């Protein structure tokens, strides 16, 4: 088992996959805390379906690199979603958007696709499949660069993100540019979603966003410690999931999410026992 792992780790494509996977997990966990606290957990899900639809369109148009279409369209949708969230029935709008995007995405792929294996394509976009192991060097560089940008933006805006997450009205009354920071948050989330599609596929992205935050919130009670813990948990789970996936030959995305879910369940049990004793 160890030998097999050591053998695999010598290949550059495996190393790339591990680096990219951990970076994506780090980014999604950072913003995940804010999304969970703002009660926007489902936005990740909705956006990932939008990303799926745009990916289908890109496939139909035969674009060489679909990032250039998927990224702007997803960002646009994220901005619109964050703008309209204050109105009533935000959850219904989100549900509507996500199923519509999913349906049209599949429709486009079926009707226009020139590929011989449509269901295979769909499956890999939805569940990530092995695409993480077939990354090209340019993809890795792009992914790493975007991740670094996300982390830097998050650190620079950390205090502002806290202020608008904790109490938007107060922040606004005190003169904080709330709309501006909400815009920053939505753009960053869209970028993360598109990045994470490579790793876990569009159906499982919300797990990557939500689980680390929930696990961390079980253990810690301040915003900083929760954020740091979520990042560590997320990177650890992604690494473990990818290693298991490589050695056992299981699909990358679902293995990572399974590890996330198990870690969360264990945390719930342990904190329940420890909390009960107090």
């Amino acid at each position: 088992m160890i030998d097999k792992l050591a053998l695999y780790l010598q290949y550059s494509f495996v190393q790339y996959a591990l680096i990219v996977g951990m970076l994506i997990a780090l980014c999604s966990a950072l913003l995940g805390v804010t999304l969970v606290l703002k009660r926007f957990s489902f936005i990740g899900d909705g956006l990932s379906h939008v990303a799926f639809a745009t990916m289908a369109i890109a496939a139909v148009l035969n674009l060489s690199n679909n990032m250039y279409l998927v990224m702007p369209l997803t960002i646009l949708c994220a901005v619109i979603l964050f703008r309209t969230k204050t109105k009533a029935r935000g959850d219904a709008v989100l549900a509507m958007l996500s199923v519509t995007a999913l349906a049209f995405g599949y429709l486009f792929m079926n009707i226009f696709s020139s590929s011989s294996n449509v269901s295979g394509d769909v499956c890999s976009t939805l569940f990530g499949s092995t695409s993480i192991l077939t990354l090209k060097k340019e993809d890795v560089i792009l992914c790493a660069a975007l991740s670094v940008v996300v982390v830097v933006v998050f650190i620079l805006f950390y205090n502002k993100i806290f202020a608008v997450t904790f109490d938007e009205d107060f922040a606004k009354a005190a003169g904080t540019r709330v709309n501006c920071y909400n815009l920053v948050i939505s753009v960053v989330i869209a970028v993360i979603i598109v990045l994470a599609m490579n790793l876990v596929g569009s159906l499982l992205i919300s797990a990557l966003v939500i689980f680390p935050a929930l696990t961390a919130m079980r253990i810690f009670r301040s915003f900083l410690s929760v954020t740091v813990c979520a990042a560590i948990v997320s990177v650890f789970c992604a690494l473990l999931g990818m290693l298991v996936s490589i050695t056992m030959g299981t699909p990358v995305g679902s293995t990572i999410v399974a590890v996330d879910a198990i870690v969360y369940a264990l945390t719930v049990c342990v904190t329940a026992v420890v909390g009960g004793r107090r």
Partner: protein
Amino acid sequence: MALLTISDLSLGYDSRIIVEGLNFTVNEGDYLCIVGENGSGKSTLMRTLLHLQEPLGGQIRMGDGLAKNEIGYLPQQNAIQKDFPASVREVVLSGCQARCGWHPFYSREQKKLAMDNMRRMGIDNLARRCYSELSGGQQQRVLLARALCATQRILLLDEPVTGLDPKVTMEMYDCIANLNREGVTIIMISHDIAAAVQYASHILHIGSSVFFGTKEDYLASPEGRLFLPQDGQEQLERATEGGDAK
């Protein structure tokens, strides 16, 4: 010149007017209580004063060099904060946010300001505790400390004693009265008319009829008599004895 001059203000949502023709002024050091029935527009007025929503008509003028955002705000608890993982220190510090501008981190002076305000509210020993695990009274003190980080001049309090038990309610009122004595101008929305006439210097009553004036005038007015039918006179006497009859 007054800190705030409100002239001919109309309030409401989407062109549905709730209150119109509102005129009042707030001077430095005033303690203004806004009273009125549910749905009379108290919260709308407060949101308008905070520039969270636009007035339908009329205007709000700031005087004495008071900046548009130099108003501290003590909101009612929102649902998000119930299980929010945030330490007391993090919450109070976030009051300094508006002073930061584009600067990403808090400066040493801002951290000191937050610490000073925690001490002032008597919550410095709770700095590392989780905000959502505190009692209602402690949470209000944290939010007051945060508001004081945003401004030292004028505080808007939205029903600050909702859900507090009688003892903590008294402490909260004392705390606010102390701030007022230290020179902080207070505007408070309240259901509690008895407390309003005990502590406030001015009363704004909105609803079917509008009254604005000093507490003494309010108790003599038809609106005041309506709400304090029997003990209005007694309240007046107690209140004019120097406010030490608490």
